[in-house]
């Protein structure tokens, strides 16, 4: 699996690919090339087996029973919490709350902040390249509370205009909710700059890490933001599981907005005393197999570590960007050498839907459309883009095949 040379462990994609059974599939008589990892990644046997093993040997409800299975399931669940907390360098694992995904996490945050911090007429700052998930929940609040969303504009190279950010801030501004990596452009937000400005004006920072956590090292102790959220299924884990990290302050201060079984200490019809720590936010029976599968995915990635994975994927991105730049009809949006493994492009005068349809005929899975970033599409003045996004099992050989077929597709459509 891995070859260890002192502390450097090299990625061997040929071996890695053997861990992902779906990569054996052929699509339209071509071997599957899966470039839609930004939507969801494929799962290695290690994750699939962890879930099967849980249901075959351990399945039981957690945090409740005294019987052996319940104890084992609870232990597996809490070990998973420790594993994932340690991966994200979270000091106190209680700061790691399991949710159904990034969207769920963002909704819990906005519901909590709207009952504590936010007042009628307040303002929230978002970036131009937010995913709808990090717009809608705030917009809903704003619509009901006379609030205002203010948007950090893009510069000509599609990166964020950090200088413009400070000018947006007024005494009514309370929150900056921002994505770590644009799911459409792959551009990385400079959180150091965002933090510096936010600290100066005492603003709460909410970071959507759905597209950063799969591709780079995220050290939440060092990052030191108020909230950070991401989804397991984009990090080789199962669907329906995500995390919500909150600072120690918010772990105590964020109001409960989603009460339910498991979140309490004592309940009477008159009064409820809520549990402390993560449990206060984990209402109902959680996605136990999802959490256990997620921990298996994290253990799998840590065979190499995120630094090595990031380096490898950056190599793929820069190679693909270079190859795309050689095709005169192709326009790449947000070209940069500092990217997560995501590239958005269009073919001049061709609808992205046509490109995606024909690439699929060659077994190449890409994403086309607005990528849940319609406001960004409006800024770029396009109906959508073609998006390719990479994972650890993708190779330069696949990129070469994709480029060859893209050229063919362009000649068919022109």
């Amino acid at each position, binding site marked *: 699996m891995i070859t260890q040379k002192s502390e450097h462990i090299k990625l061997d994609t040929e071996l890695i690919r053997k861990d992902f059974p779906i990569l054996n599939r052929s699509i339209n008589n071509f071997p599957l090339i899966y470039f839609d990892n930004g939507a969801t990644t494929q799962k290695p046997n290690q994750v699939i087996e962890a879930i099967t093993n849980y249901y075959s040997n351990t399945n039981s409800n957690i945090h409740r029973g005294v019987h052996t299975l319940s104890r084992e399931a609870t232990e597996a669940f809490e070990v998973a919490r420790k594993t994932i907390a340690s991966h994200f360098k979270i000091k106190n694992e209680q700061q790691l709350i399991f949710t159904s995904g990034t969207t769920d996490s963002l909704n819990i945050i906005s519901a909590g902040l709207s009952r504590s911090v936010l007042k009628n007429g307040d303002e929230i700052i978002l970036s131009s390249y937010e995913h709808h998930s990090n717009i809608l929940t705030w917009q809903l609040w704003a619509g009901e509370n006379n609030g205002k969303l203010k948007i950090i504009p893009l510069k000509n190279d599609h990166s964020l205009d950090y200088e413009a950010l400070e000018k947006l801030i007024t005494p009514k501004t309370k929150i900056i909710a921002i994505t770590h990596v644009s799911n459409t452009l792959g551009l990385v937000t400079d959180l150091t700059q965002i933090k510096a400005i936010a600290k100066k004006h005492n603003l709460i920072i909410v970071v959507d890490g759905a597209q950063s956590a799969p591709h780079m090292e995220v050290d939440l102790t060092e990052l030191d933001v108020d909230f950070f959220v991401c989804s397991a299924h984009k990090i080789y884990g199962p669907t329906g599981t995500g995390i919500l990290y909150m600072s120690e302050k918010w772990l105590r201060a964020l109001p409960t907005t989603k009460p339910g079984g498991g979140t309490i200490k004592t309940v009477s019809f008159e009064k409820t005393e809520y549990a402390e720590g993560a449990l206060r936010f984990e209402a109902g029976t959680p996605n136990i197999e999802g959490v256990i599968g997620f921990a298996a995915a994290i253990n799998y990635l840590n065979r190499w570590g995120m630094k090595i994975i990031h380096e490898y994927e950056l190599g793929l991105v820069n190679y693909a960007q270079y190859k795309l730049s050689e095709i005169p009809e192709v326009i790449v949006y947000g070209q940069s050498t500092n990217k997560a493994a995501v590239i958005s492009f269009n073919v001049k005068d061709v*609808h992205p*839907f046509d490109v995606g*349809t*024909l690439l699929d005929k060659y077994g190449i899975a890409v994403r086309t*459309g607005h990528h849940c970033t319609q406001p960004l599409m409006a800024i770029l003045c396009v*109906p959508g883009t073609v998006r390719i996004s990479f994972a650890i099992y993708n190779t330069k050989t696949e990129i070469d095949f994709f480029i060859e077929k893209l050229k063919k597709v362009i000649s*068919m459509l022109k």
Partner: protein
Amino acid sequence: MSITDIENEIVEEFEIFGQDWEAKYEHLIDLGKSLPVIKEERKTEDKLIKGCQSRVWLDSEKKNDKIFFTADSDAIITKGMVALMIRVLNGQGAKDIIESKLEFINKIGLKEHLSPTRANGLVSMINRMKMDALTLSK
């Protein structure tokens, strides 16, 4: 010609492609390119079939008890599919349009374009064509 006759004619035309999907799609793209476009000013909101990655505009009218369609799309493959639908349904009676099964799409191996996840607006367009035929027949 009846709807079934035209469908059979198309199935026959597509037989020459056999398993050569590239040639078939090139033909579909050509059909899309040759479909007369709707003028920009006539692409109004009420003619737009929404909720799809590729947008489709449909205009329907009745002449001598027959229904006629004009349609357009911003994606060329979708437009090719639109051109086939129009060829089959144009100038037919409302009842025949409403009752048409359009099985030729399956026979020419393009059924995947009618899957709900294709997001190309074709299913919605066929529904709209039938609805318009019903409305215009009254």
